[in-house]
Structures are given as structure tokens and as C-alpha cells.
């Protein structure tokens, strides 16, 4: 189990945060840290999320985030 951090570029819109939170809650995993703030023209937000997981879950979460409509880009951050 390793600490992971992802930076998501998301639509600054109702329900996008809930989608991300639901994905973790649905897998019964805890988000360790979270910060969200609007960027540029306020149509987008940056979302930093931190969690602890093994490699397989990490890969799975990235894939599932990638298919979430509302999440434009996913970047890995070094812990």
C-alpha cells in the first residue's frame, strides 16, 4: 500500500466532485486528502486528491476516472 496523489483537471460544474467522491466511496476506499479550486476562466477546476492504495487499485481508479464525463485530464503527482 502506497500513498498516491492525482491531479485532475475537471469541469467546474455541479456534480463533478460528487462523481470522484462516489468512485472512492463505491469501492469503500477513503480519500486521504482533497483540494479543489477554479483555474483560468473558471470553466475548469484543479482537483488534487490523495489516497493510499496498492498498484492494482491505483490503475483501476485511474481508468475509472478517465471514463468519468467531467474529468478532462488526469496527471500523476509524485508523493
Amino acid at each position: 500500500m502506497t500513498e498516491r496523489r492525482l491531479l485532475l483537471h475537471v469541469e467546474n460544474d455541479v456534480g463533478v466532485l460528487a462523481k470522484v467522491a462516489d468512485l472512492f466511496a463505491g469501492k469503500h476506499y477513503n480519500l486521504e486528502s482533497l483540494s479543489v479550486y477554479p483555474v483560468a476562466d473558471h470553466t475548469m477546476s484543479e482537483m488534487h486528491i490523495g489516497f493510499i492504495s496498492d498498484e492494482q487499485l491505483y490503475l483501476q481508479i485511474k481508468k475509472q476516472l478517465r471514463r468519468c464525463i467531467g474529468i478532462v485530464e488526469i496527471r500523476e503527482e509524485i508523493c
Partner: protein
Amino acid sequence: MNIKGTQLFIKALAAEKTDLLFAYPGSAVISLFDELYQQQDIRIILPRHEQALVHQADGYARSTGKTGVCLVTSGPGATNIVTGIATANYDSVPLVCFCGQVKRALIGNDAFQEVDIVGITRGITKHSMMVTERENLGKAIKEAFYIASTGRPGPVVVDLPVDMMEEYGSDEYPETVQIRSYREVGAPPKDQIKEAAAMLSNAKRPLFLIGGGLKKSKAEQRFGQLVEQSGIPVVSTIMGKGGIPSTHPCYIGNVGMHGCYAGNHAVMKCDLLCSIGCRFNDRITGKTDLFAPAAKIIHIDIDDASISRNVAVTVPIVSDADQAVEQLMAEMTPGDYNVWWHQISQWRQDSAAESPADETIFTPAAIIRTIDNMFEELIVVTDVGQHQMWTAQYLHQNDKKQMITSGGLGTMGFGFPAALGAKLGNYDKVVVCITGDGGFQMNLQELATAVMEKISVIVVIMNNQSLGMVRQWQNLMYGRRYAGTDLMSSNQGQQQVSDYIPDFIRLGESYGINGIRVSDQSQLEKALEDASKAIAAPYIIECMIDPDQLVLPMVKGGRSLDEMIVEEK
């Protein structure tokens, strides 16, 4: 020109070529219904329950390949379609579900008939959204249809506040969409195709495993060519059966919990498993640690998140199935699989338990085979339970015979309304609903819809007077303690009735529907003949079967696929 939201809604549906709208009214959609009343192009199907409504749209979508469109009111109207949305989501069925919503000013106030349907369905839809600004309505509807039907299809919920729909705004309905967070799946990656083709060329015991995704991609024809060219044996999931004609010599059968003997053994002994459009659900794999222990796995799927989720994969190929099959065909050189085929033939011979010797006995297998033999072109829609597994086992499938079933979610009550939807989309084809006495009762109010809309579906109820599949588990694993599964008793078996309730034939009569109760083979053939002559009305055939009939072979949950129960002790 400025028009009302309700008018734009009609315009949008027409642009999306929606000819059928499965709709149930309520206060939050009354203005939409008023608008629908004033047009003739879209036919409104009024069910008798919203759960049935969404299953009807689902059956229509699965049988036609078009997007099913639903309209329900807020609150209970919306929550009643939740089961159907989850059903469609699991089986990747394109649906657009419009839900009325309370006025924008009341949202979040626990208003009358208010629920957060977008929140409720977030985990069971491909996408869900509320349209709060009239100016976004056209774009939102366009996006909903686009998202539902492209990539891996799925249901989309669009929540429509009633006052927004009554507001005037632009009459423009966009022709294209651009969603910056929606990823299109591209062509299959060349390197992985090369690697997969080399593995297929070198394998001694290769096996194709086909799932529903192969059919969704319309890859049947090309896959047939690949099988012809390579001579590689094929097994399927329930959703994948028919991806190659089930009479094809290379087709072994279904795999999984109720897979065939030879198919399950083949998975356990193959050295290369090439899966196309299957997500390795637990009903397919049995215990995942023990699944296909000798095999490398090639996994072709349009959904990245389905790959390496349940089983570890050697070569992942994220792509449309048809394109991947085409490229694999161009790259691979078939090997010599004689020894492998000899082994498979041996397993086929060993599986005597799967072919009942006496076809004249009124067994579930005989019922399915009789229906199968009766019609050359057929859509069979099942409910969920033993009859579903028997149909999956014994019904032949090909380009003219299709089976529609709730595979992933296993939703009882799905069968009958979905059959009505299938018939609405295929008036020229025979549609048979094979259902159980339990599942049929979960949505039998739709008999009224069938009569009112003149939908001639043949309903075959396999009545074993019990909830057969759970009873089967109780029989095999719980010491034959039939808790809650005997539909002829109440209070834990303390009180018994002598006649089954309801009398399905008399119930049908009250709807003006003809029907017959049968208990042997010849009666069934005659009944099917009569039923197929019934025009513009459903027909009920109630087959009385023994509650002790089991679906075999069976792999108990959490066991390896080669640990099959093949006969009753």
C-alpha cells in the same frame, strides 16, 4: 425563433429519429405530455408501471440497436426507473431517460415529489445531468443521445425542471457535439495486435471467449471469418452466445457457473485465452485465482476500465471489437490444433448429463428445444432464473435467432416488459417471452399495455411453483430448507394452498387474452401454433414443470470452473 423547452424537446426527439417514446405522466412532465399530444410523429407507449417502462425501452434498444427513450415524472416516477437503469448499465444498453423535476426554486427543499435522481443514478449510469438553464437544453439532449450510443453504450439520465421546460428560448438543436472530457476509443494499438497475433499463431491450445461486446460491435461476420480461417475453438458468455452461430462446429458452448462441461474444461486447460467483449464477471470466472491457470490472456474491450479488473491480462487491447478482429485476422497464422480438438471432443462425449436422453419427457430442455424448432426467425426475451439459464443453454442462436436477457444485474421482472419493447421494434418477427412464475408476477400489470398497444408477444411461463434458482441453491447447498421460495405456501410452509395463485390463464382472460396450460410436449407444439396465429394480442402458454428440475452443470460460487456438479445426487 423562440420556442418553449417542451417544443424543443419534441424537435430534438424528431432530430434523433425517435419513433417510440416510453412515457408515464406526472405533474412535473404534464406540460411535456401536452406538447406530445399535439404531434403525430412520435408514438407514445404508456406502460402501467415506470419500472416496466424502462425495461420496455431496454428491450426495444437491445433488439433494434437504436437508443431507447424514456420519459417519467419526478420523485417516484424517477425512482421507479432506477432498477431498469442499472439493468441497462450492466448490459451496456443505450438509453436516454428524461425525468421531470420540480421547479428550480424548490430544488433541495424536499418539495413534493422531489428526489435527487442525478445523485441516485450517478453510479449506475454512463452519465447523468440536470439541465438548469433553458439555453443549455438543446446541447444537453444532443450530448445525452451521443453519450448513450457511442463507445461502450449505456444509460444517460437527463433531469428536466418543469419551469425550465416551460421557459422560452432558442429553437436551435445542435447537429454536433463536443465534450472535452469524453474520450473516443481509437483504432486498436498496432503493437498489441502484433503481439496478440503472434501469441495466437504460436499457441497449442488457444480458445476464443466471446461476450456481449462482440455483438454490440457488430463483429459477428468478421469474427466468423477469423474462426473459419484459424479453426480455433470458441466459448461464450451468455451475452456473447450467437456471436457465432451456435451450430458452428468450432463453437463449444457457454462457460461459467452454468456453462457447458466441455467449455468450462476448455477454459481451464487452454494455453491462450483470447477474450473479445467480455468483462470476466464472477459468474464467468468462478474463483478468479484458479481461472484459466495455464493460459495467457488477450483481452479486447472497448472499455479500458474492464481490462485487468477481475483477471490479470497479458495483452490488453482497448478497441472496438470489429476493428481488432479484422486486424488480428490479417496478422495471425493458424497452427495445428488437432490434439487440442481431440481433447475437446473427448469432453463433449463425457458430458452426457447435458443431453437429456428422452426428448418426449416434458423437461425444461424439451420446452426450449420445441420453441427453438418451431420458429426459424425468433427473438426470445427471458426473465431471470432457472428458465433463463435453460434458455441460454438450449436455444440455438445465430443472425436470425436472438436472445435478450438481463445478464449483468439479473433483474427479475425484466422479461415480459422487455419482450413488449422488442416486439414494438420488430413487428415482423416472432417474439417469445420465456419467463418464470416468479419473475412474470413482478411486472404482469403490463398485460394491459400489451392489449392496449396490440403487442402480440407469446408468453411462455415455466411454472415450477417456486423461485426455482434460489430453490436450486437451497437444494444443493442449504439442506433442502426451502425458505421463502415455495410460492404455494406461506408462513414458512405452515400454510399451503392447493391451487397456484394466480391462475395465469384466468388472469389473462380478464385482460381479454387467450392462453392455455400445458403439461406435455404435444400440447406445447399445438399451443405454440395457436399462439403464433394470435394477431395483435399476447398469448399465454403456462408450462407446468417439476420444481425439482435443476440447471446443470453448475459451478458453486467461489469454486474453480472444473469443479462442476453435473448430475443430481
